[in-house]
């Protein structure tokens, strides 16, 4: 239990530090106030109008006060509106979140769906043609960043064979499922490719090590069938690295696939954050950063707990402190 409390304290510290640094960074960016004022009141604003605007937005208060005021607003849920377009920030975020979530889920799902069987079979049939092809192609995929993959996919599937739309028009899953999947198809594949490569290599390496353990021989000698041997006995002790990596990627994918979002023009959290930074929308950026940091940290936290469930030895050593 004390372990859990310790982790929570760490979490809190990290969240606070990250958000505080964010607000400092935002304020330090040059031209912030001028840009802001220029955008809100138009060029040629008089100094009095500028000062009034500054006061209105609360930007004349000391940094700490601003920070706590924004954080307080975040926690209470009264996020206010964007400064330039006067949209409710909450709405913007609510629009951006599902997109990012879909991308993340589809990408991870595709990657894991392909990676786990491939890795297991490669480890089982090590050094056969299948294994060599799978390993080589995974290695190649690691060298293909998403901004290279995306144009290629678009060239093939949107330009030459006009299957998928480009750019992707976001359609809700509930309204127009077919269009929804069509819109998300290429972006998800773009994301899934490097994920797949990483996962497959990780799991393959761990599986190879596990399959050489004695307890696999024991299970074999019991007459266990090959599928059961691989997936029940062999897979579970090999999942550590994969789970860690997948968990880290959840956080990374939510906020970091700006390139894919930008390229396919999907309005996800990454794009929202970046555009808000450019437009000096301080509160939006703050809240987006808080959300993303919270997601990242809580995922790590739950993965840590999951370790104990996957491997009972970890459970025991933790209990001992």
């Amino acid at each position: 239990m004390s372990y859990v409390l310790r982790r929570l304290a760490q979490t809190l510290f990290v969240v606070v530090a990250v958000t505080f640094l964010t607000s400092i960074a935002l304020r330090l960016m040059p031209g912030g106030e001028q840009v802001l004022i220029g955008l809100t009141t138009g060029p040629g604003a008089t100094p009095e109008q500028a000062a009034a605007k500054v006061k209105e937005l609360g930007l004349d208060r000391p940094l700490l006060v601003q920070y706590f005021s924004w954080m307080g607003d975040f926690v209470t849920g009264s996020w206010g509106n964007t400064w330039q377009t006067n949209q409710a920030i909450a709405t913007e975020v609510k629009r951006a979140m599902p997109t990012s979530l879909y991308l993340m889920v589809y990408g991870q799902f595709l990657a894991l769906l392909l990676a786990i069987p491939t890795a297991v079979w490669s480890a089982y049939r090590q050094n056969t043609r299948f294994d060599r092809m799978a390993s080589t192609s995974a290695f190649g995929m690691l060298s293909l960043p998403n901004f290279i993959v995306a144009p290629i996919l678009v060239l093939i599937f949107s330009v030459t064979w006009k299957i998928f739309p480009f750019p992707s028009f976001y359609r809700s899953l509930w309204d127009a499922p077919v269009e929804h999947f069509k819109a998300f198809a290429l972006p998800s594949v773009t994301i899934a490719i490097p994920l797949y490569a990483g996962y497959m290599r990780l799991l393959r390496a761990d599986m190879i090590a596990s399959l050489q353990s004695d307890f696999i021989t024991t299970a074999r000698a019991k007459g266990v069938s090959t599928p059961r041997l691989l997936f029940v006995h062999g897979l579970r002790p090999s999942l550590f690295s994969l789970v860690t990596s997948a968990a880290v990627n959840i956080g990374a994918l939510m906020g970091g696939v700006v390139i894919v979002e930008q390229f396919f023009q999907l309005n996800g959290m990454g794009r929202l954050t970046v555009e808000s930074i450019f437009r000096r929308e301080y509160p939006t950026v703050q809240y987006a950063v808080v959300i993303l940091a919270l997601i990242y940290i809580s995922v790590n936290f739950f993965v840590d707990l999951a370790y104990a469930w996957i491997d009972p030895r970890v459970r025991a050593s933790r209990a001992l402190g």
Partner: protein
Amino acid sequence: MNRQLQASRRQVEGPLLEVRDLHTHFRTDRGLVRAVDGVSFSMARGASLGIVGESGSGKSVLSRSIMGLLPKRNTERSGSVIFEGQEIIDLSLNERRKIWGREMSMIFQDPMTSLNPVMRIGKQIGEGLRLHLGMSKDDARATALKLLQDVRIPEPEKRLDQFAFELSGGMRQRVMIALAMSCGPTLLFADEPTTALDVTVQAQILEVINEQRRDRNMSVILVTHDLGVVAGHTDEIAVMYGGKLVEKAPTRVLFSNMKMPYTEALLHSIPKIDDPSHTRLNVIPGRPPDLVNPPKGCRFSPRCAFVQDRCREEEPPLMNAEHPEHVYACWYPVGSPVHRERTAQLAAQAVGAS
């Protein structure tokens, strides 16, 4: 296949296991490793056979080869293994799987690593029961409990839900035995079952194995390098060297009337507790033979203290000794004139030296 085996079970006549000219070779970078090079023997139902040899003698490969538990690639097996009247050497993997656990099973050397670390004990034992005997989850659990009681593990109910790392080495080995017994096999291979355990626990484990053997009328093949282990717990002993069977006899006969100089040397190398302190250990000089290029003639000849020219040229076949069940492979066995002469020579040298 299973049905056929069950039918022939009623065939009480005839040996349980017949191995004829079994060869097991591994293809490696260095060449073909002849780990088992023409081994033949047979074994009756309910008997216990000890297979003794040093590292590199091929004893572990032999037991796995009989069972068919070796990787397919780069392995060549030839010869014949007849189990309960059926040839099993050329069975497919699926057919072999049906035998493993059900008709034959194996206990392995290192109990620390031989149990699945993330699966509960009860579940591991029950796996075979549910797979081969089609038991329900509850039945399997109840049977697993009974098996644990049979192997005399303390607090058996508690163990069912524990993990391997929560048990000591001796307890883990008992679990392995219970696991191997679970589907009632007719033949049990025990591959160095006590090597990784404390001396005090060794005797207990061997007792448990023997108890199970008697209760179930099961045959046991006990593979070990330790003559002490086989001395008290086997009916018959087979000695292996360099991939070949060099001597086989009922236990008492072997110890009282051994023929192979190698067996004699093995026995002499065991330190005796009542020897005076600082007694020199009798070691067998040299190293185990190269299994890729074995020596011509008798494989033990480079290290034998009694070697003659004939040993280096011609490989001795298995010959019968006085006792009908005793075979050995040596041109100048213990008791022969050459051997007696040489022994006297060596004794004189030893006296002269000390």
